[in-house]
């Protein structure tokens, strides 16, 4: 396992990138710890798969360096980097048995047969497929096939990192849970460095210790699930994480106060961003209190989703979603108040202040 350093990496698919727009991946400069579980989260086309392929060596970046444990691997081929990758769709060798599938990477590397047998049996136990060893791989279910893909990586003891490219896309919902928790267990027991690409926030938040949120070719925030929830660095993180996403509304700042339409809100700490074109206030639906005091709103819709209700309201021209616990009161003349703990201020989409 290895620490991964991404040193000023940029990538463009066209040969002569001129402006920032030509880059599928804008400057990425980060260090990922040895044994960490990272999730790359973002919408389609945000550059997360590009970044993953740069790490795996399927793409060589236009600029910058990639280091594994301090060793420059930028120009090395996929094979030489010693990584394992699980793809979106199960990649298995149809004509081989489960056992042979796992033995394949070792046989290709000329490992002695006795050693192969030991490693393969060990791995089969780890991925819980020991009783399927002699079966042809093609007859298996999608989740078992994905485990074989994973197993082909685990069987090599010297892998630097295991990369996952939306591995649960084709898995049935109830098996997603099982696989995800098995992955987590593997990570905790063996301490692999894992990088997991997904556009599903639940997957990212449950799998990873650190979630890397990407948007439009750049990393907008790296943080624990809690940090992403409480203090989104960028309005995109606010929208993208959480269900429903963060309420973001344009405000005018003056001193310690923020003005929304005709209402004034006191900020927990005064901020005065210079030269910002757009100032916005973001607050998660969990921090908006519905009651009889505060700013008057109109209720547009109430969605009951079981454990809580989502109340869609309008504050003058602004849509605001509120989460109300089950059994919570929805008054006839509703008013809302913002919990100061949940207030974030954004200048040109980037967080400048709040609690």
């Amino acid at each position: 396992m290895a620490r991964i350093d991404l040193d000023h990496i940029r990538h463009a698919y066209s040969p002569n990138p001129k402006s920032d727009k030509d880059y599928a991946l804008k400057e990425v400069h980060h260090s990922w710890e040895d044994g960490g579980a990272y999730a790359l989260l973002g919408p389609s086309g945000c550059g997360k798969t590009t970044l993953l392929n740069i790490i795996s060596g399927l793409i060589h970046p236009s600029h910058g360096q990639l280091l594994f444990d301090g060793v420059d691997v930028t120009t090395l081929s996929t094979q030489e980097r010693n990584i394992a990758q699980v793809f979106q769709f199960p990649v298995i060798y149809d004509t081989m048995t489960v056992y042979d599938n796992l033995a394949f990477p070792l046989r290709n590397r000329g490992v002695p047969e006795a050693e192969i047998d030991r490693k393969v049996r060990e791995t089969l136990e780890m991925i819980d497929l020991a009783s399927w060893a002699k079966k042809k791989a093609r007859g298996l279910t999608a989740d078992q096939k994905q485990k074989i893909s994973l197993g082909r990586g685990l069987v090599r003891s010297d892998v630097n990192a295991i990369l996952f490219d939306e591995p649960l896309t084709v898995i049935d919902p109830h098996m997603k849970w099982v696989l995800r928790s098995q992955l987590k267990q593997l990570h905790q027991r063996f301490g692999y460095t894992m990088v997991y690409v997904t556009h599903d926030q639940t997957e990212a938040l449950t799998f990873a210790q650190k979630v890397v949120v990407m948007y439009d070719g750049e990393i907008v925030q790296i943080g624990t699930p809690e940090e992403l929830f409480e203090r989104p660095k960028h309005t995109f993180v606010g929208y993208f994480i959480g269900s429903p996403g963060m309420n973001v509304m344009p405000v005018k700042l003056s001193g310690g106060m923020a003005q929304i339409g005709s209402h004034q809100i006191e900020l927990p700490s005064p901020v005065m961003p210079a030269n910002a074109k757009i100032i916005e206030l973001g607050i998660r639906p969990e921090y908006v209190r519905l009651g009889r005091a505060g700013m008057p709103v109109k209720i547009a819709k109430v969605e009951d989703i079981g454990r809580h209700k989502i109340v869609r309201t309008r504050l003058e021209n602004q849509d605001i979603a509120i989460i109300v616990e089950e059994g919570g009161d929805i008054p006839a003349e509703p008013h809302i108040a913002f919990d100061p703990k949940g207030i974030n201020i954004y200048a040109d989409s980037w967080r400048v202040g709040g609690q």
Partner: protein
Amino acid sequence: MEKTWNNKAWFMVLPVLLLVAFSAVVPLMTVVNYSVQDTFGNNQFFWAGTDWFDEILHSERFHAALGRNLVFSFIILAIEVPLGIIIALNMPRKGWGVPVCLVLMALPLLIPWNVVGTIWQVFGRVDIGLLGRTLANLGINYNYVQNPMHAWFTVIIMDIWHWTSLVVLLCYAGLVSIPDAFYQAAKIDGASRWAVFRYIQLPKMNRVLLIAVLLRFMDSFMIYTEPFVVTGGGPGNSTTFLSIDLVKMAVGQFDLGPAAAMSIIYFLIILLLSWVFYTVMTNYDAER
């Protein structure tokens, strides 16, 4: 589930029934009709029973033509299938080379059969043909009109030129449908070029290969036009395949009874062999 009976539903099948009747059953019945009767013209028929079938099945001429046809099909399959795979593997997957290769590959398939025959007939001629003259100038005594071996060589090369493209295009279609992830995974697993072919490309080409083999077998077993134009079945009977023999018998000698019996036997052989190919290959497929 309860079955609903509705006799009116039979009317819905009627158009198809009529279509099949006129396109297949009626013409086929004519052949069956001829195969069990003898006629001397004037629309007078005499019952012949299985006599014609007996005659054909015991005819040396039929055995020889059948043998030639089997050997021919075997040779061209043995060459065209591996050659087609090799060419498909080496064709570019992206860039300007793709349309160029595809058009080049499709060209022979677009040429009418008798034109292909004519091209090769001229191409191989010793007096004016490029191939014939070149071989003659190299000191090789090549003459497909007189030497049976040379006639076979010409017909086989012609068929390979004409039809390998079909195998190539089918294999290529199978190859491009393999997702990139398979090649990437193979790289990560450190697979050799051979292992990639053996464990990824070949299994994925399985189905198209089955179709390619079936089509090539059926076509080569029914081959008529090209060898007829090039060699006319000669020298002697050396390139007289089943269909050429059949036409000689039906049109040349006007032996309608034996020709009809032979048509039916011919048809059944193709049906049987195609079924055998299909069953063997799909079973093999299922086992793996």
